[in-house]
């Protein structure tokens, strides 16, 4: 500790650091206790899972902080103490969740279990349709030979999507539910502390920067915060609008599992450009398999198209363009690079990482040029 004097208990950073260590230790203990039924599993595996869970919870907590912080600031502007403001928001969220558990959550749960039961039927129908297409191609162009599309797809669905057997699906769903509960407990817990002590933590952290770079760093953190906060809020607003539009459109068309499909549409919309297409595929399959009517594909596509139009014509120009000042071509290139480097997550993170890097480089460049003069 002697080599790192700023981490001692007497400094504010030291206190924040110790608090963080304490929180992580408590979370690790909670995680280990939560997986108490599987004591036989090696400690390393539990620790790995715990760290993985904490990492995901931390990421989710950061997103939540960016969503909730403006509301906390709004309440603080009425002279309410910060902690009380956070508690009020938590109570309101808990009340909203209570209402959701009574109405929307059971619907989603019902839809998920029904979808799980009907999954083999959808799978068979897709394979049948592909078989038909394959036969048609073979008849029209015999030189193409045997494509074996349906067999390949069937193997892929069984291996990658369904994990082999029905029992595997149940295990993976229980794992997902377990992780979901962990996230539900841990993320709000971390969010609370980030919201409460965030400003002090930020102040303590910036306090370690040498005098010469202090103002530049302070300004940089401020700019990054604004960019990142605006980005997270804009993306979530987009997801919400797309999800709502799809929910209304699909309900009007009478498509099954509207709630689940709307959530998928909203979430996949977080992936720029390709996301909306990925989000539309399940709805297209379900609508086609259930009705057998090709016209339904057009109608469902129209619903997703309208959702995208609202996104592109209303939300992006009004909210997004102000936050991320980027040329559309630059956005596409950055997303492709992000996809190559980190897959879907890379695509989601590409634009914010790029804009943060741009702000940082610009700020450092301004700082260094002025230092030279």
């Amino acid at each position: 500790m002697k080599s790192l004097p700023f981490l001692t208990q007497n400094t504010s950073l030291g206190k924040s650091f110790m608090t963080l260590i304490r929180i992580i230790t408590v979370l690790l203990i909670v995680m280990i206790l939560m997986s108490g039924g599987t004591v036989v599993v090696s400690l390393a595996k539990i620790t790995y899972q715990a760290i993985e869970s904490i990492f995901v919870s931390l990421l989710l907590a950061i997103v939540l902080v960016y969503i909730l912080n403006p509301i906390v600031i709004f309440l603080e502007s009425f002279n309410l103490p910060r902690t009380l403001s956070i508690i009020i928001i938590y109570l309101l969220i808990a009340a909203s969740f209570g209402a959701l558990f009574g109405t929307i959550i059971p619907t989603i749960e019902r839809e998920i279990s029904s979808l799980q039961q009907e999954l083999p039927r959808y799978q068979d129908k897709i394979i049948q349709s592909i078989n038909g297409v394959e036969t048609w191609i073979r008849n029209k162009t015999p030189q193409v030979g045997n494509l074996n599309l349906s067999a390949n797809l069937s193997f892929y669905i069984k291996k990658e999507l369904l994990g082999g057997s029905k029992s595997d699906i149940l295990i993976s769903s229980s794992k997902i539910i377990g992780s979901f509960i962990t996230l539900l407990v841990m993320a709000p817990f971390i969010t609370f502390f980030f919201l409460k002590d965030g400003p002090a933590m930020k102040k303590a952290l910036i306090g370690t920067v040498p005098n010469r770079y202090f103002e530049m760093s302070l300004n940089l953190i401020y700019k990054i915060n604004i960019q990142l906060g605006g980005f997270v809020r804009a993306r979530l607003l987009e997801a919400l609008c797309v999800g709502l539009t799809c929910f209304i459109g699909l309900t009007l068309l009478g498509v099954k599992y509207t709630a689940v499909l709307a959530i998928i549409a909203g979430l996949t919309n977080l992936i720029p450009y390709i996301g909306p297409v990925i989000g539309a595929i399940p709805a297209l399959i379900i609508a086609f398999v259930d009705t057998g009517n090709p016209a339904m594909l057009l109608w469902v596509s129209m619903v997703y198209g309208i959702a995208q139009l609202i996104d592109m014509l209303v939300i992006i120009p009004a909210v997004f363009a102000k936050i991320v000042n980027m040329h559309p071509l630059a956005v596409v290139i950055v997303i492709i690079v992000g996809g190559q480097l980190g897959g879907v997550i890379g695509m989601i993170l590409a634009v914010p990482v790029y804009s943060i890097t741009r702000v940082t480089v610009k700020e450092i460049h301004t700082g260094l040029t002025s230092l030279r003069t």
Partner: protein
Amino acid sequence: MTTDIFWGNIFKIKSKKDLLYYFLKSNPMFNGFSSRDIKNIEKIVHLRKFKKDEIIFKEYEPGTGMYVIKTGSIRITKHRKKEGGVSEEEVITNLKRNDFFGELTLVEKTRSPRTASAYANNECELVGFFKPDLLEVIERNPKLGVKIILRIAEIIGSRLRITTASLTEKKEEIKRLRSLLPQDEKADLSNIG
């Protein structure tokens, strides 16, 4: 011994905090602010330590905020062009405890260039108050934000008044000196401006 460490630490931390609180409360910059306001300001300001002759900021570099001197003294310098185009740094003023400087950057466009340089004359402690923090105060506590901005405006206003008075005085002096000059030299001077 344990008790000493325990109580000693508590009182040490408390007195440290109180020092900054009382310093801010007694400073003319925050004169008349309520205790609650001072406590809120204490949360956002940054206490920075500088060594002898260390640069606090340099002329023309982008500025983010102002500093109030808690301990020690600093000097404000400015580059002046001498004969032959050589630029030299000249000390404009020396500032001591409770003085503040750099407040213009709080109301100017973000990261406006500094109009002068500041160096520590000896080991000193400065309380930094920066624009991002001011913007945060305006959002979180608009009443306090308005109070701070009004105070900065008052300070800048009074400094502007002094500068205007000094400029008028100098102009009068130039006028008086001009009137003493012969007619042909007056014409030469008017060509210069």
